[in-house]
């Protein structure tokens, strides 16, 4: 039992690394969020307060990590273009988006190619459209760095838990083990075994455990306001997209004959109903992972936005006068703390729901057929 959990925990580590790599490479997609905004991350100009833009700054990805006040942690820009090859430099060279560097400039959150090779002010630079379209942006952005931090945290927790199983052979669990073991047992018994069934659950258990702890830890880190937390990882569409994609791939590849038969030609249905049912079932194969992605993404993003809105109320009222700002700060902080606690619950719940639904899809894919019962 202990050795099996040990091996399980090691598999969790391996899968976490895989997530980190694949999510980092797809966080290219995270660069192209809806609105291009000012890169003075989260600072209002003296005068007009723009809460909408500030909120977007806080929840989007960025090429530097804003720590406090005017301090930023500039992150490496790794960019590849066919003409110029690989270019690695610090995003500090962009001077908050005011300067170009080496033929690149920062436009909102995306890197664009410009025609001037000498560093000029970005307002004088002209965008090189075709070169921009062919750029490959592998930068370590805020989300990528946060992913690496959360994977390091996951690896640390699970490697030490695995080690304590080998050290504590045949003894009662202690320390971090006592915290992690009930959760693993809960997922194994109540989610994997009961949904997928005794025969097949072991194959999917490492993935289910990994996805549960990965989402949970990233949700929790997203609620911590200071570095190393505070990056909106699961609220960025790329990360839930990859997780849903992996669930979809595993479901598709583990589908047995009964699964595909139920989709394309459900037994016991008259032909004329099948004409309607089969397209719906085929759509369902794609819609189910898609909804999985949207559920996680929207829940976490909405939570972060609500949190930020309540907090920014103080500044919005502070625009009117200092006193109203100070007076608003008490209820606003109370609301913010309350919503933060709610988000702790939502973070855990969304991780559980994602895992539960993934297990459900795996169970449906590997379900043995029902035998007709003789009455």
């Amino acid at each position: 039992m202990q050795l099996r959990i040990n091996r399980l925990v090691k598999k969790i580590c391996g899968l976490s690394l895989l997530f980190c790599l694949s999510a980092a490479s797809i966080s290219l997609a995270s660069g192209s969020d809806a609105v291009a905004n000012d890169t003075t991350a989260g600072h209002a100009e003296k005068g007009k307060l723009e809460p909408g833009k500030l909120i977007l700054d806080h929840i989007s990805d960025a090429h530097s990590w804003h720590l406090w006040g005017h301090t930023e942690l500039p992150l490496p820009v790794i960019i590849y273009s066919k003409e110029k090859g690989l270019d690695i430099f610090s995003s500090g060279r962009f001077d908050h988006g005011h300067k170009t560097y080496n033929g690149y400039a920062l436009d909102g959150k995306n890197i664009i190619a410009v025609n001037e090779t000498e560093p000029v002010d970005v307002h004088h630079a002209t965008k090189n459209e075709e070169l921009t379209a062919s750029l490959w942006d592998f930068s370590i952005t805020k989300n990528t760095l946060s992913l690496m931090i959360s994977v390091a945290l996951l690896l640390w927790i699970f490697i030490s838990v695995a080690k304590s199983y080998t050290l504590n052979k045949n003894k009662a669990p202690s320390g971090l083990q006592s915290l992690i073991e009930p959760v693993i047992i809960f997922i194994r018994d109540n989610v994997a075994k009961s949904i997928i069934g005794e025969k097949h659950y072991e194959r999917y258990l490492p993935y289910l455990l990994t996805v549960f702890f990965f989402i949970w830890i990233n949700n929790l880190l997203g609620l911590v306001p200071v570095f190393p937390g505070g990056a909106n990882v699961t609220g960025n569409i790329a990360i839930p997209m990859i997780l849903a994609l992996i669930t979809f791939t595993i479901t598709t590849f583990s589908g047995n004959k009964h699964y595909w038969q139920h989709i394309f030609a459900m037994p016991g249905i008259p032909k004329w109903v099948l004409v309607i049912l089969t397209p719906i079932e085929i759509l369902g194969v794609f819609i189910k992972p898609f909804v999985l992605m949207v559920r996680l993404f929207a829940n976490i993003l909405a939570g972060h936005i609500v949190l930020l809105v309540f907090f920014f109320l103080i500044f919005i009222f502070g625009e009117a006068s200092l006193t109203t700002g100070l007076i608003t700060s008490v209820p606003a902080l109370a609301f913010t703390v309350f919503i933060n606690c709610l988000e702790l619950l939502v973070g855990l719940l969304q991780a559980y729901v994602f895992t539960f639904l993934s297990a459900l899809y795996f169970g449906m894919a590997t379900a043995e057929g029902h035998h007709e019962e003789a009455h």
Partner: protein
Amino acid sequence: MLGILLADVATADLNAIAKAGAVIGAGIAALGAGVGIGRIGGSALESIARQPEAKGDIVGNMILAAALVEGVALGAVALGFIVGL
């Protein structure tokens, strides 16, 4: 009559109308979430009243169903947010 109305709409600020539509959509989604989760909570309370020993199971399933309903509603809210900005 309809012509005057249409002409009025055509000259109005489409951006403002789009934002208004987005917020109204988000509000309707919140309505849907409220109705759904209210019904789930209501049936959960009724069944706990019927059989208090099953409270643990019922509450667990209630939370799960609420999360699923919330997922759909928040998807609509997120869409409204994206359109509105």
